[in-house]
């Protein structure tokens, strides 16, 4: 999809599925076949609300799911499927090629170990550096994220929230990965600190050629920082394309309604909530998962799940309204 502009993606996810075991033999189908492409130096936004499967998806890419999870699909890192052998093929690449900044990472530091020690830990574990060399690299990393190198001997409680988040980013970059997965990196931060962190992430991708997937529920953040975005709902990607297009020409009602539900600083349009709630994923659904809440649902929406269709350049969406076969019927239902 993004290969249309010639470059090869550094990370390609194809048909990724994740199931979680529930009691009494049931399963929760948390991720239902998602495809993603990430080019070097690109920032891709993965947007959705709670329970849509965005965090589970990137945890799956990292192979960080518990034993109650089953994964299927391909995760291509520079052309090689690292998911082919499960944990055994994923773990050599973990942190060295793909790294992650977890949700709430800034609160997950060990309070009794110095920051420098904690950032050096992945370096030691993955045989990247140790001892004096590690210390030097830690210093460089801290400078890279905007903390002075001599602060590596401090403890986490001596840092503010924003600085701890920077340290978490430094820890993710410890082994010089090509791909960074950031899960809600600015959610708990003040808007000014958020701006600082986003600025940092932008400069890291621009200067280091780092590819980044930014997982968030905050649409304006994605609008500001990511040129491309994928919108997730009920375990599937319902629309993917340039962020500009997603806002101005959305081709899935959820995308449009999600933007409409977000108040804008200057916009005067009414802010509308989306009634109802996402479907339960422990049952098999018929039809489009969004149909019950959709304001433009029509006949086929209740019967079959829509296919992912190309609706523009590097723009896909899964909605029956985009199907030329249903064009007449769709036009009859006025939005």
């Amino acid at each position, binding site marked *: 999809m993004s290969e249309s502009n010639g470059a090869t993606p550094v990370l390609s996810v194809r048909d990724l599925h994740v199931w979680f075991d529930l009691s009494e033999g049931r399963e929760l189908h948390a991720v239902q076949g998602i495809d993603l492409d990430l080019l070097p130096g690109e920032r891709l936004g993965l947007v959705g609300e709670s329970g849509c499967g965005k965090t589970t998806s990137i945890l799956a890419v990292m192979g960080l799911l518990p034993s109650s999870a089953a994964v299927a699909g391909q995760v291509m890192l520079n052309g090689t499927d690292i998911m082919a052998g499960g944990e055994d093929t994923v773990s050599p690449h973990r942190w060295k090629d793909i790294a992650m900044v977890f949700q709430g990472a800034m609160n997950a530091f060990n309070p009794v170990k110095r920051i420098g020690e904690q950032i050096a830990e992945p370096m030691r574990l993955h045989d990247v550096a140790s001892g004096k060399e590690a210390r030097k690299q830690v210093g460089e990393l801290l400078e890279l994220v905007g903390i002075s190198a001599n602060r590596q001997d401090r403890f986490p409680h001596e840092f503010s929230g924003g600085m701890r988040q920077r340290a978490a980013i430094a820890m993710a970059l410890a082994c010089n990965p090509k791909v960074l997965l950031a899960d809600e990196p600015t959610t708990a931060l003040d*808007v000014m600190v958020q701006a600082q962190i986003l600025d940092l992430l932008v400069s890291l991708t621009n200067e280091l050629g780092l590819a980044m997937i930014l997982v968030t529920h905050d649409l304006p953040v994605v609008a500001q920082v990511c040129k491309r975005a994928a919108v997730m709902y009920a375990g599937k990607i319902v629309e993917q394309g340039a962020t500009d297009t997603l*806002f101005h020409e959305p081709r899935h009602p959820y995308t449009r309604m999600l933007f409409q539900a977000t*108040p*804008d*600083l*200057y916009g005067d349009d009414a802010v509308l909530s989306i009634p109802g709630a996402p479907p339960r994923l422990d049952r098999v659904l018929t039809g489009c998962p969004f149909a019950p809440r959709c304001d433009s649902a029509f006949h086929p929406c209740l019967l079959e799940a829509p296919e992912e269709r190309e609706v523009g350049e590097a723009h896909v969406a899964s909605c029956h309204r985009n199907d030329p076969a249903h064009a007449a019927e769709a036009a009859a239902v006025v939005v």
Partner: protein
Amino acid sequence: MSTEGTSAPLLEVKGLVTRYPVPRGIVGTVARRPKLEVHAVEGVDFTVAPGEMVALVGESGCGKTTTAQTVMRMVDHTEGEILFRGQDIGEMSAGQLQPIRRQMQIIFQDPYESLDPRFRVHDTVMEPLLIHGIGDNGKDRDERVLHALERAGLTPPDLFADRFPHELSGGQRQRVAIAAALVLEPSMLIADEPVSMLDVSVRAGILSLLDGLRRGGLGILMITHDLSTAAHFADRIAVMYLGRIVEEGPSREVVRNPRHPYTKALISVVPKRDPRMQVEPQILTGETPNPTLVPPGCRFHPRCPIAEARCTQTDPQLREPDGADEGHRVACILA
């Protein structure tokens, strides 16, 4: 847009100061360390009229939550007046406050913690009636409970009355909290970050509910860190920094024509929904200083991009700058 200006204000806060002592402990006392105080609120003036929504906006540590708690008398103030319907409630005893508490209610940020998990919805909404001895008999109280649930958008009310909180979604729980506040038929509502823990698609519903209540004559004081929400739903915005209001006025005016350098920076840094509407963010360096150490002169001067020498000497008061709309006040000598 608002009905203010014609009726007497519900709430008038004048020169409010709230300080917390920082405990020194035995070591500190023996070592004669200086007695530190957290200058949470340092001289705040604002009013809320019936049918008006005023938003207190700011980053963490600015004192907005403490202001709300002081107004509710959950915390004692150090100086200043809190006038509710003309009466000074700042000095009232607990017994005297009881009838006032009927009139002024609060909603908290966390819908998952706001409700006692052992109480059914019916019991939660009934509790305020029992505390204040309202209702002629059981049947009358039941009716009031159902009516409050309806006002909060939980229809049909009997569907929800017997449920436990864990059976409800975040948005529904918040509505229960709102119903518990409405059952006493207050004239004023304080909403402390009412939607920040809810999904985007649900937020608008709650905010519209609050807006509807406002149009019905309720005065609402909303505490939020989200400028976009404040800009969209509030009639007036007061921007707080380190215990002071640095700018206040009609929300449209403050957002489109900010005069204080802090407000300008904040607005530039808030991400916009529309990818094409991103402005160059004016990112301030560092983070909000420690509220125990307030800088001399203007408290913003260490981070202010246009600070001059005289800014370290004068502590500016709120005043109307030239060329601004009526009711728009700024605390900056350079505005």
